[in-house]
């Protein structure tokens, strides 16, 4: 019986240590159009508890890395909180996004490319041209 309890305790410790390590989700490498000017990769913690070890980076098809950026306070994203990395991008390059978190069950991410849009009033805004989820 004592051996069984010790074994169960060891299994519990191993399980907890596995949870504390950062896992990752990533988007495919995507390209929008020649008009793409800005990429934004956002993540959300949809779970009932704060999420640790949250980082975001954007990687070009040539290996250039923007980030990683730490999210929240001390890399911890609160319940229902969002975090994003936004950067200007080259109009002839494809990019992907990689995000890390201590647990992935309630962690989601999305990468969107925007183009400039000239409104009838003359103001410039951003419109989405391509979106890819992180998984």
């Amino acid at each position, binding site marked *: 019986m004592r051996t069984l309890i010790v074994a169960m305790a060891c299994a519990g410790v191993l399980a907890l240590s596995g949870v504390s390590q950062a896992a990752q989700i990533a988007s495919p490498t995507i390209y929008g159009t020649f008009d793409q000017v800005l990429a934004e990769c956002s993540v959300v913690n949809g779970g009932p508890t704060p999420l640790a070890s949250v980082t975001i980076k954007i990687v070009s098809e040539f290996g250039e890395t923007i980030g990683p950026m730490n999210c929240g306070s001390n890399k911890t994203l609160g319940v229902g909180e969002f975090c994003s990395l936004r950067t200007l991008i080259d109009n002839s390059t494809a990019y992907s996004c990689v995000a890390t978190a201590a647990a992935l069950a309630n962690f*989601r991410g*999305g990468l969107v490319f925007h183009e400039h849009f000239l409104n009838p009033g003359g103001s410039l*805004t951003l419109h989405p041209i391509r979106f890819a989820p992180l998984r």
Partner: protein
Amino acid sequence: MRTYAAGTMFAVVLGLAGLAQAAQLLSPPYAVTTRGSNGVGTKAACVIRNTGTESAAVKVSLLTSVESVGIFDFCNGHTLGGGQTCLVSAEIFQDLGVTSYVACKVTAPNVTNLRGTLEFAESPSHGFDVYLAVDF
């Protein structure tokens, strides 16, 4: 010692039961930018379909980083029958030039047969035009 072991097993069973209570379907987040000047905003809609044959009590919410005001809610407080679709929508308020973030969260006893789409349209709307949709 036997009591301790029994207590441990009881705790494990309780933990597993807790995990099995409610499942969650969560969309990727979308970064909503200002659509245009002259008061052009964004409406977000979370559309949930039950692809199964059995009814499901679903709880659907739009997670937003900014203030939002609900428009329609045909999901919460109702049972979603097999083959049926429901919708929750909201007006997303944002300041000019500021990005806001939106995701859709669905909880139900079982989400295996649930499918979701997070849709964005301009407000005021041009018919039912959707400028971006995210399936989950």
